[in-house]
């Protein structure tokens, strides 16, 4: 039996917003849940995030956006993923996001959207299931 590899996650903070408490909490929680987590730090440009995701060969990319610019940033992300050839990864967006914008984000290729008051176990569960499906 081959040992199951740990899930690899990139947590990124795109844009200029410096509120990283939520992102850092996710990083620690996912690590506690046995995943390998790479955190980009603040003020990441989208091309750098996509590049890091390819280089680190992660299964999951999670972006934390609290500044309200989630649609624009996600649109940039999906265009850039296309350009650099990121391929199939589980894409998550977290932050202050109203219900009615969730379909818009999904249409841009986001797999899961999580509000700021989401239960952490829900996110962990979502990642495990999603990564399994990706194969």
């Amino acid at each position, binding site marked *: 039996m081959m040992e199951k590899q740990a899930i690899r996650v990139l947590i990124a903070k795109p*844009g*200029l*917003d*410096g*509120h*990283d*408490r939520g992102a*850092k*909490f996710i*990083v*620690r*929680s996912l690590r506690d849940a046995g995943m390998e987590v790479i*955190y980009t*730090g*603040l*003020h990441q*440009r989208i091309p750098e995030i996509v590049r890091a995701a390819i280089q680190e060969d992660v299964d999951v990319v999670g972006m934390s956006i*609290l*500044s*309200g*610019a989630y649609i*624009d*940033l996600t649109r*940039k992300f999906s265009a850039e993923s296309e350009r650099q050839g990121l391929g199939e990864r589980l894409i998550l967006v977290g932050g*202050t*996001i*109203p*219900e*009615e*914008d969730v379909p818009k984000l999904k249409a841009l290729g986001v797999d899961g959207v999580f*509000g*700021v*008051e989401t*239960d*952490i176990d829900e996110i962990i569960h979502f990642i495990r299931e999603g990564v399994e499906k990706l194969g």
Partner: protein
Amino acid sequence: MKEKITKKKDRWREKCLSQAPYRSAKAELSGVDVDVDILYTPDSIASIDYPQDIGFPGEPPFTRGIYPSMYRGRLWTMRQYSGFATAEESNKRFKFLMDQGNMGLSVAFDLPTQMGFDSDNPEIEEEVGRVGVAISTLKDMEILFEGIPLHKVTTSFTINGIASIILAMYLAVAEKQGVPFTEVGGTIQNDILKEYVARGTYIFPPRPSLRLIVDTIEYCMKEAPRFYPISISGGHFRSGGASLIQEVAFMMLNGITYIEAVLARGIDIDEFAPRLSYLFVTQLNLFEEIAKFRASRRLWAHIIKERFKAKDPRSMMFRVYAAGCGDVLTHAEPENNIVRLTMMTLAGILGGVQSFFTPAYDEAYEIPTEKSALLGLRTQQILAYETGITNTVDPLGGSYYIEWLTSKIENEVRKYMEELEKKGRMVELIERGFIQNEMARIAYEKTKKKLSGEKVVVGLNKFQSAQAREKLQIYQPDREAISKQIARVKRVKAERDNEKVHYCLKRLEGAAKGTENLMPYLLETVKAYGSVEEIVNTLRGVFGEFREPVM
């Protein structure tokens, strides 16, 4: 007397309390929990010496307040933080709030401005005008204060990385209005050290940033003496998850760092310390928050007097601006936040703050609507005019519980500061990421408790109602207004005397390489309509950029 009470209390414990089961309670003072007794009595505070430890308002150690008559003399400044989209729209909101009784302005800037980008930079276009107003050149600042006479209001600017540039612009606007610098009042946040740890709008590395701050302090001391050049902040640590003890301790250690940097230029403590101001947030634990303000006043007075040998009592005053902490608000059932904000505002006022900001109940991060912004102001007005709490100074003074907590907090902060100072100087600790980790550890524990329900949040993890998630409305700036802003920046850049701008920037670069005070150069550049981004790029060329230590 003390012995008699203790004896009786022991008897009471045995006779009455032992028959009544009760839960234990902890103070959330620090990472280390402190047990809170079920009852406080005179013997709990028997070691306190009234004249020395509590004293009278307006006299060191200022436990009961920094002014003798406090709110009987005049109310705190109700300073509602606002600013969004463009200078025109923010100008309108300022005027609306002033009509409604807001006493001081408080400007929120958008992230590009805070990070030193102009609105016309295509890389950051999606963030222009989103969380605050966009300011790229002096032109924007002129519009922001159109029709607002700067000698009649005081303005607070939440700006750090480019605080010196914004200060220069504000002074330039005053000059155009014909208001002498000596009559301009207000505050720039200008506390860069906490940005590396908690808020993230740093640009340059800590040491050159520190120089810029000392430049503003020195400049204001000489040229704009009514202006507070720095607001040393504990609040952002707290919002980022730190404990109450950390909030105070980090703030004070940063304060010490700034003071030492100014003293290094050979300036006397009593020349500038009266112009330092401080910023806290309040959270929900009413009595702990009130005690925090009292403890901080007492501790800071001791530090300034004993460590820095200040003689002027004004140097020892802990002038504090506080705000309700957005971090404890919930998206679920937003009306509940009105209750929370009332408690947090009350904590500030009973704590004796000099100015307060009550956030809007329907924003956890976003821009408040006119209605919700008004309710924040109304909260303060109701407390000021209807509740009678302004009728006497430090009305809780003497309460066994409050006095016990005040001393406890003071001691805990002192201990924690000593511990940290043994590990290194604040700048080094930040460069190493030590403070960041220290804080993240506590934030993580706290968030876990909240998610597991161990820490009850009403409407969120206990007593949820069916329609708990109200519709969240995210502020989307008016695209047309943003386009106008971008067009304006381009137009200003096209129409100004570009040669002069280049000349000013060159001079600035030269000065940055030396040790001169940069403020006059900045003033000269903004007056020539040099933009925020141009100035930042020039300085970045000399100072370099800060990279966050990896977590």
